[in-house]
């Protein structure tokens, strides 16, 4: 008998698991579930840290696990486990059924077996052999940290790399049967500059998905120059004076504000909670007419791109806001079930231990017609936010963001660098104040933490002008 014909009692990556998956799903449906979903993953990760002129940390990790979700009416029960045997998976199904208190096993939904296997991993199996070796990574990181040694005022230099390779199998009672391999690589540089009582820091991070050779193409010299200049520009900067003022937000990571302040409010999880002011605003104006905003998972190589989401749906390009009018919400399976908004291929999770939720992918404001100079020239007194730090949005929609590198604008010109600025506001009040969009859209990678863990995303925008916003300072 051929080995492939032997019915396995355990999930085996790289093999056909159809019979076993169907058996598990039939088992759950037979116990009265409306819907059964199985998400299985196998990970192979690695990270390297260079500090000053030495490699100080190499951390490989690997693991495997399954997340099983059962729906009954609009409730769901989710169980995660490291046990990928038939017994272990069935035990998890039983546990989810028991949690949901399903005692009526009368079938309302029918499972007709899994559809034809959609295997997105076929062309990706070679990736693990194509990604750079630890030796290659180490050498390039050390060259990068050496490039940061441009002044004796630089007291700390760091370069870091991480690679996540995730193999997934997704099967559910609507027939979905999908396999995929995801590859994400990031590399970052950080410095701290110091002179007497003055201190500043600079950092930049780069990232890609599905491009095993990308790290080799990374221009570390340009990155090092950028980080160095940023830290030196900010070293002697004064604290910004607080107040209301117009600001220009730079492109790339400047898009983090739209992501945090507005993007999260367009996820169906926020509708479920009743925490978005945009819940009943579909086809209404929520932003300035110069604003068109998009969330998609299809830009090749972008950090938030996917062949298929964590619920087995291919990602779509979702125009969220068109010329200031709200057009769509970002939705997953539970979101569609509970809010009626169609799935957008946005069901995402950090790993098997989280249930998927509606999450952003590559999210950006579309480009406009203006040059960066047009935006700055239009302001007599304001702030230019060249580089943004992190931020957050509260339960009632207020957001705040740290400005990592800022410059005062006076009479249409950039002047002194300033530090300590924080942008504060509320999405529904700020969105109508984005009055000008530049023509220089660029994306930047990041990690977004929310209900289903930390996921890879890109944020982005062209340079944009906000007519008035609260700037926190001293």
């Amino acid at each position, binding site marked *: 008998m051929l080995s492939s014909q032997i019915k396995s009692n355990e999930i085996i990556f790289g093999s056909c698991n159809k019979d076993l998956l169907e058996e598990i799903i039939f088992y759950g449906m037979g116990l009265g579930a409306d819907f059964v979903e199985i998400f299985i993953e196998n990970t192979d990760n690695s990270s390297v840290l260079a500090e000053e002129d030495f490699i100080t940390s190499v951390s490989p990790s690997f693991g495997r696990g399954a997340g099983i979700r059962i729906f009954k009416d609009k409730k769901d029960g989710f169980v995660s486990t490291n046990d990928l045997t038939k017994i272990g998976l069935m035990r998890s199904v039983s546990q989810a059924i028991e949690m949901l208190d399903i005692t009526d096993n009368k079938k309302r939904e029918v499972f007709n077996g899994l559809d034809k296997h959609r295997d997105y991993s076929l062309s990706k199996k070679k990736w693990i052999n194509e990604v750079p070796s630890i030796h290659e990574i180490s050498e390039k990181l050390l060259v990068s940290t050496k490039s940061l040694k441009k002044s004796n005022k630089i007291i700390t230099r760091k370069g870091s790399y991480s690679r996540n390779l995730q193999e997934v199998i997704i099967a559910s009672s609507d027939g979905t049967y999908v396999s995929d391999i995801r590859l994400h690589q990031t590399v970052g540089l950080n410095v701290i500059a110091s002179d007497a009582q003055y201190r500043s820091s600079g950092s930049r991070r780069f990232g890609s998905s599905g491009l095993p050779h990308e790290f080799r193409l990374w221009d570390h010299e340009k990155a090092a120059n950028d980080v160095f200049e940023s830290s030196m520009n900010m070293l002697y900067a004064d604290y910004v004076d607080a107040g209301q003022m117009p600001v220009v937000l730079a492109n790339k990571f400047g898009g983090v504000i739209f992501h945090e302040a507005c993007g999260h409010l367009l996820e169906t999880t926020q509708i479920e*909670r009743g925490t978005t002011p945009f819940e009943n605003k579909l086809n209404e104006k929520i932003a300035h007419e110069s604003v068109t905003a998009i969330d998609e998972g299809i830009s090749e190589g972008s950090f938030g791109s996917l062949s298929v989401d964590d619920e087995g749906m291919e990602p779509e390009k979702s125009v969220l806001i068109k010329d200031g009018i709200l057009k769509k919400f970002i939705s997953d399976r539970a979101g569609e079930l509970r809010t009626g908004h169609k799935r957008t291929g946005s069901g995402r999770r950090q790993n098997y231990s989280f249930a998927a939720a509606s999450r952003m992918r590559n999210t950006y404001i579309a480009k406009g017609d203006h040059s960066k100079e047009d935006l700055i020239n239009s302001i007599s007194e304001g702030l230019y936010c060249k580089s943004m730090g992190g931020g957050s949005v509260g339960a009632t929609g207020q957001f705040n963001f740290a400005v990592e590198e800022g410059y005062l604008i006076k009479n249409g010109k950039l002047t002194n660098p300033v530090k300590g600025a924080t942008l504060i506001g509320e999405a529904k009040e700020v969105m109508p104040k984005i009055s000008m969009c530049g023509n220089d859209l660029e994306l930047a990678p990041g990690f977004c933490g929310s209900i289903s863990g930390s996921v890879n995303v890109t944020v982005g925008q062209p340079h944009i002008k906000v007519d008035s916003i609260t700037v926190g300072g001293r």
Partner: protein
Amino acid sequence: MNSKEITIQISEAADSLNLKKWDYGASFSNDYSVQVDKGEAKQLKASQKQILTIRVWNESNLVGITTTSDISESGIKKALNQANIASDFGNKNEKTEFSPLAKDPIKVKDSKKRNPVGIKKLLTLLREAEVKLLESHESIKSVPYNGLSESFYERVYANSDGAFRSYTKSQAALYLYARAEEKNKKPRSSGSVKLGYGVEDIDIESCIKDASNKTISHLNYSSIKTDKYLICFSPESFLTIINAFSSMFNARSILDGVSLSNKNSIGEKLSTEALNIYDDGLHEKNISSSPFDGEGTPTKRLCLINKGRLENFIHSESTARIFKTIPTGHAGLGSKVSVSPDWIVVEKSEENSDLKKSLDHSTYEGEFVYIEELNAIHAGVRASQGSFSLPFDGWLYKNGKKISIESATVAGDIKYLLKNIVNIESNQEVTTSGISPHIWVDELSITGDA
């Protein structure tokens, strides 16, 4: 496999790979949690998780590490192999050894381990709590963020030198975050978190009351004028600030050049003489206490600031060796061993005659800003520079009245803050991250939009 069997398995696999020196840390957990939405179960979760981190030392005494969730025989062998490969890239400039204290006796608190109550009971309790919170005030319209969970876990450390220690614990948590709405006003939110060894130890009524009172207290709000104010930090918010700048006490951060302190900072005056700060992971009120750290070093109480002066740093094995002292029980196992505080205890020292004792948050009638909770710490704190700019929830007290502050930030410098403490109230309060009294600080910048 239980932890003893895993240790034997690792030992045998290491022998077969000719690896003489190794250690590992592991955790095994079972977690259950529920969320509700207007009386209905929303999501019910259960997870069974195992994480194993193995370090090996190669013939050149360089360390390699691997983390895995696969504790099968083949998984353990693979982990040892990968750690061995990683050891070729081990840090030649900073040696790592076993903690010299990894076999010292540990103080295991009366564990108070509880039994699971089960998902159905969790769901019933949370449903009841949600109903009571919604009924507590007509303006509370929903409880968008809520959860009740219980966890049962075992943590283990062992090494090839014969050290073996483990402990088992249980922990439960309840959080209720309410949203209140009134006509022609912005929605306001606040909440409360309670921890216990088990669900039966959680004071659910008090969590409901706190969440309700806090939320309602923010209904009448106003903008605040940008200016400098006298500030009263709640125990929770002061502990947030201290934890955010704990790199001041952290030997790892000093060696990495990201601390405001340096090797010679011990004895340096950081604050008013009236301030004492300890790290006390074994404190009886610390529900999450662990009797040993990631390297097996026993946890202990350590004075960080004594009468305003820096007294001790927190250490791992390697930082302690570099600083010529002993590990303090604050290490996290990793390729680069991390160092972090356990549970901060803030108190008034005996040298407190300079404090303005009339400043009491419950009786003071002058103008001040009360900071209840600081937000967005990850975005607004520059620990290596000492600066912060943080949004907060709080009130402006003026003319004997208090009004909730709408959307504002507090900004400053940690060294300035510590040196400008003008009062430390007498009563300490227990929070989820430590113990502290209310702390008063003069002249911090508040940005509002009034």
